[in-house]
């Protein structure tokens, strides 16, 4: 069967009434929880994952996609109406979106964000459909050295690009890799760093850690700040949310540019939706004739970053599905969810379980459409949910974290792990150590270790194996460039600055 036949089969599966219902539930639940202030897309996906545990794999994956989609968009609603972005990818949307809401045009901002997200999402999924299968075929040529080099590149770039300090990002990635080491070594059967705790013999399970580090951490941070929020009132009738002809005219190219920038930035592990939205907003402002309106309520200032972050969120699926490398914390959580059903994203999945891959991709098309429908028709009831007072919301997050961590493996020990991860997440937050690299390190750790050990076994201990195979060498050069880029940039700036100083002094 070719790509399109598989995709057709995928659509047939998604359009079964039961699957369609799960997709709708996923999109709505994802959007609601992703929109709640302080939760955002990663926590949203982590907290809603337990909802899929009792299902058959196909339904679970379809619902997961809906949750992912809903959560990715949910952050925009709170950014526009409360001025608290649900996640960092929605920060730029909130700049102009909230200004528009203050002017009574919150409805138009949300509608334009939904349309931009829909167009960007559709483009992204189409690109995924076209390019993921050939990339996966290329990925089948990867041996252990190439796999290890690719994972090192992903970890380095995510560590380097998230947060304010590259060193802290790398520290976070190494911490994740260390957590992945804990447990019985699969080759020799020797326990490592288990401290005699029997529950740790199987290793540290991924999902309780994710639930703790995103869910419980949020509760602890809120206890410290006791932040309250107020939802802006907006006219959300269908007529009131439709933008004017002029607003369409200024937004259409912003959506196109945002989509293209977002997709290509999102392909790179670590860069993700946040970088894409920052970049597209900056480019839009610099190239716009209405630059003076940016930050004061320019609708294209909503359209561009929102399209970019959605395109980037889809682009992150390309390395995830074709090479098994999650490009962001959210896709890492999603990967953990897929692995619960024994589905290991990567090139082999396209070959061995095409019905799942194409069911997943087809459900993305459907979830994208559902998101547009939900956001034009069902925003008002959702906004009422946003008005939940902070203490009630945090009680709900606590309960979901406790119950969710338990029901992964019906284990009370997993709730203790989630609490430990929550406290760790709190201290990481206070010390400004980014959390996404820990998650990626934990999910990629076992495979990275296996790939490295197999590589050194093949080479009988020689590191030359990484430098004599072209793909592995190319990936290592890319990693080295990543690591050295800020240093080279700093040197270049330092060289330029002495020649500028006199000119500045004269001016």
């Amino acid at each position, binding site marked *: 069967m070719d790509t399109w036949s598989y995709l057709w089969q995928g659509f047939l599966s998604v359009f079964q009434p039961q699957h369609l219902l799960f997709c709708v539930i996923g999109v709505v639940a994802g959007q609601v929880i992703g929109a709640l202030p302080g939760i955002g897309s990663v926590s949203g996906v982590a907290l809603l994952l337990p909802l899929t545990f009792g299902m058959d794999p196909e339904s679970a994956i379809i619902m997961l996609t809906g949750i992912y989609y809903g959560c990715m968009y949910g952050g925009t609603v709170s950014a526009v109406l409360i001025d608290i972005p649900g996640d960092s990818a929605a920060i730029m949307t909130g700049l102009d979106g909230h200004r528009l809401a203050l002017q009574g045009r919150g409805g138009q901002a949300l509608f334009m964000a939904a349309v931009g997200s829909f167009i960007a999402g559709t483009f992204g999924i189409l690109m995924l459909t076209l390019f993921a299968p050939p990339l996966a075929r290329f990925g089948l040529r990867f041996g252990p050295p190439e796999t290890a080099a690719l994972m090192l590149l992903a970890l380095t770039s995510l560590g380097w690009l998230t947060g304010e300090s590259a060193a802290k990002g790398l520290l976070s990635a190494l911490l994740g890799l*260390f957590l992945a080491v804990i447990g019985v070594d699969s080759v020799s059967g020797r326990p*490592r760093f288990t401290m005699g705790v029997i529950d740790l013999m199987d290793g540290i399970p991924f999902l309780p850690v994710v639930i703790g580090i995103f869910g419980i951490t949020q509760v602890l941070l809120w206890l*410290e700040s006791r932040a309250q929020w107020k939802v802006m009132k907006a006219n959300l009738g269908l007529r009131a949310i439709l933008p004017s002809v002029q607003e369409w005219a200024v937004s259409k190219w912003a959506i196109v540019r945002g989509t293209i920038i977002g997709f290509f930035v999102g392909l790179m592990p670590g860069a993700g939706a946040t970088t894409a939205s920052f970049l597209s907003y900056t480019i839009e402002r610099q190239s716009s004739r209405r630059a003076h309106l940016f930050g004061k309520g320019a609708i294209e200032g909503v359209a561009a970053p929102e399209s970019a972050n959605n395109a980037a969120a889809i682009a992150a699926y390309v390395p995830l599905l074709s090479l098994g490398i999650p490009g962001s914390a959210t896709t890492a959580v999603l990967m953990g969810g897929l692995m619960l059903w024994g589905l290991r994203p990567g090139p082999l999945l396209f070959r061995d379980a095409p019905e799942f891959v194409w069911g997943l991709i087809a459900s993305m098309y459907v979830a994208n459409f559902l998101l547009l429908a939900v956001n034009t028709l069902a925003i008002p009831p959702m906004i009422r949910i946003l008005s939940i007072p902070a203490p*009630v919301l945090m*009680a*709900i997050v606590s309960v979901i974290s*406790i119950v969710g961590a338990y029901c992964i493996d019906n284990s009370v020990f997993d709730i203790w792990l989630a609490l430990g991860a929550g406290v760790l997440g709190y201290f990481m937050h206070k*010390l400004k150590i980014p959390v996404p690299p820990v998650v990626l390190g934990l999910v990629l750790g076992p495979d990275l270790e296996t790939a490295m050990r197999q590589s050194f076994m093949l080479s009988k201990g020689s590191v030359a194996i990484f430098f004599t195979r072209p793909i592995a060498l190319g990936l290592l050069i890319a990693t080295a460039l990543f690591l050295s880029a800020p240093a080279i940039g700093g040197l270049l700036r330092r060289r330029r600055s002495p020649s500028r100083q006199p000119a500045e002094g004269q001016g």
Partner: protein
Amino acid sequence: MSVDSVLGVAASVGGLLLIWQGRGFGYWVHLSGPGPGFFPVVLGLLLQPVAVLLVVGGRTVGEKPDWSRSGLRAVGAGALAFAVTIWLVSWLGMLVTVGLYTLVWLRLVGRYAWPRVVALAAGTVLAVYLIFVLWLRVPFPTGILPL
């Protein structure tokens, strides 16, 4: 010494411990290649340059985290409440514990009136029961109570 420098020193010491422990696990096994200690040793080695970057960066930045005594006390109380709740799950069962947690939280943290607190806690327990017990068929611990 800035927080980043302390973090760098801790990372370096942690890395050295990983190398030491890793060597104990067996770094290289004759004929079969890298042993169980191989990867921990690699991680320990990689931590060293990261630690240097942190210490060097910490000397120039020298930032202090925004910690307050009252904030830390609130976080400590929250973590303790979580710990007591988890401990109670095995004794009282999941549903009763979740109900108690919500009750105490909404009364002490939210400072709501009792009727509202009871209604919200009952709603939470009902939602957990409907989703996790009836729909997803999760076998919750029941503890000493038959719930």
